[in-house]
């Protein structure tokens, strides 16, 4: 689903990714793990070109998502981001109603029919396992939700435009254990329909939810493979040290 070839990335003069080559399979959950500053989030943000916002950022190499050449000059970023949704570290719903948050994506992409929007909002909230908690008060401000509900709303918002890939940047790091468990359950369901790539600091979380894991260290992929195999028998010394908590 996602193919990355020799991706290098610089912020100004500082190189933070070195020849990242990775194949991510469709309808699987792939975790990107590694110590802080290892480049895993920078790589995640390459996939939907969110790094474009940072002026000093430069990328070389090749990434393909489905049929789209992500860094080709001909690529329409809007089309790419419709296909590749993203959920952020800190839940960031807009200061609008629950309904407006979820309807935002379809609306900017030209869907204005109220009944169709209603249907999209319901489907997205159901997929994000939030519908039952908010269905009676969709006009309530999203700011009044709890942290975990806000994050599930952000997931619903990302799902509203029917992406194929869902990128998640440490989606549980601002949440308590119960809210985290709910999101993890949700991710396990989402991979039936979507390809999920998740950056996480929580090694147990990677073990619980992902089919594949990529271990990043100092901007390079040290090891990539099936999560079960890597956690049982890491091939590299560095991976083993990180997984056993000796650094990071």
């Amino acid at each position: 689903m996602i193919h990355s070839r020799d991706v290098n990335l610089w912020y100004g003069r500082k190189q933070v990714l070195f020849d990242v080559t990775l194949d991510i399979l469709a309808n699987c959950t792939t975790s990107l793990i590694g110590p802080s500053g290892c480049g895993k989030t920078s790589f995640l943000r390459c996939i939907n070109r969110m790094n474009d916002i940072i002026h000093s950022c430069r990328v070389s190499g090749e990434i393909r998502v489905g049929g789209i050449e992500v860094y080709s000059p001909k690529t329409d970023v809007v089309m790419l981001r419709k296909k590749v949704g993203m959920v952020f570290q800190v839940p960031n719903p807009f200061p609008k109603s629950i309904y407006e948050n979820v309807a935002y994506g379809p609306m900017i992409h030209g869907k204005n029919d109220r009944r169709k929007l209603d249907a999209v909002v319901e489907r997205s909230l159901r997929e994000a396992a939030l519908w039952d908690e908010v269905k009676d008060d969709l006009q309530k401000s999203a700011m009044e939700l709890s942290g975990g509900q806000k994050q599930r709303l952000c997931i619903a918002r990302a799902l509203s435009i029917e992406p194929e890939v869902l990128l998640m940047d440490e989606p549980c790091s601002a949440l308590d254990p119960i809210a985290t468990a709910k999101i993890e359950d949700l991710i396990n369901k989402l991979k039936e329909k979507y390809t999920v790539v998740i950056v996480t600091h929580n090694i147990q979380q990677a073990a619980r939810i992902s089919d594949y894991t990529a271990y990043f260290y100092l901007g390079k992929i040290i090891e990539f493979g099936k999560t079960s195999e890597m956690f049982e028998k890491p091939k590299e010394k560095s991976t083993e040290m990180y997984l056993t908590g000796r650094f990071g």
Partner: protein
Amino acid sequence: MGQKKLSERAIEWGASAVAHASILIIALIFLFLFAEGYKIFAYDDPLHIFFGTDWQPTSQNPRYEMLALIVGSLVVTLGAMLIAIPLGVGCAIYLSEIAPPHLAEILKPIIEILAGIPSVVLGFFALVVLAPLISLAFGVPSGLTALNGALILAVMILPTIETISEDALRAVPKGFREASFAMGATHWETIRHVAVPAAMPGITVAILLGFGRAIGETMVVLMATGNASIMPTGLLDPVRAMTSTIASEMGEVAQGSAHYFALFMVGCILFAISFAVNLAASMIVKRGQNS
């Protein structure tokens, strides 16, 4: 230890005394204004004073009706708002959302310099440059009109509206914009549907403070608007604002006369308007903090 506590308490007491003193001063100012101003009601009834349009304080048969002055102030101020709001907010959007950082660093101080120009200089400019142009462009005998005042007032309040709106836009969390971009929204869609709505409380405060500044401005309107105390029928009529009435007549008025009391009542109206505007602004700020 005990001594430190004493000094702590002295500081707290001092600070609270200062805070209460400023509230007291404001209350006293209003009290003084109103104590003098209400005496005008002995000469005419409030209905005539507030809703009549005949301001003839020095004629044989003096009239102290203020509606023309109130409308004069409002016409000039609202005209200025009509110009300054789109310019100021547009400028704020450009500087905070679109302009590359180095360009914003050059433009921002230039706009702030506008705020530092003495109002009498702006008034002078309106009098000798703008007014002839207006007279020429619209074919009116004199360019000293409500439009002239509105234009120059707009220039004056532009920095207020721009600066506060820009601060509000910059305070919108980066996460909102990122979320919008990640949904495939364009830059403009993100500005229009996410950044500006999120900054709306701050932009509203900017507009209200601009309004307060405009309606209280004296020198510019005195020099630019022609000062005829007649009911304006459009932007090309001369008008007389409440502020310039006080400024130009207070110097010659006999203390304790009806005219004197009338001018105080005009002051009361101005005070009430700016108090209401500031109250609205602080209520919006408070509501923004709660949500």
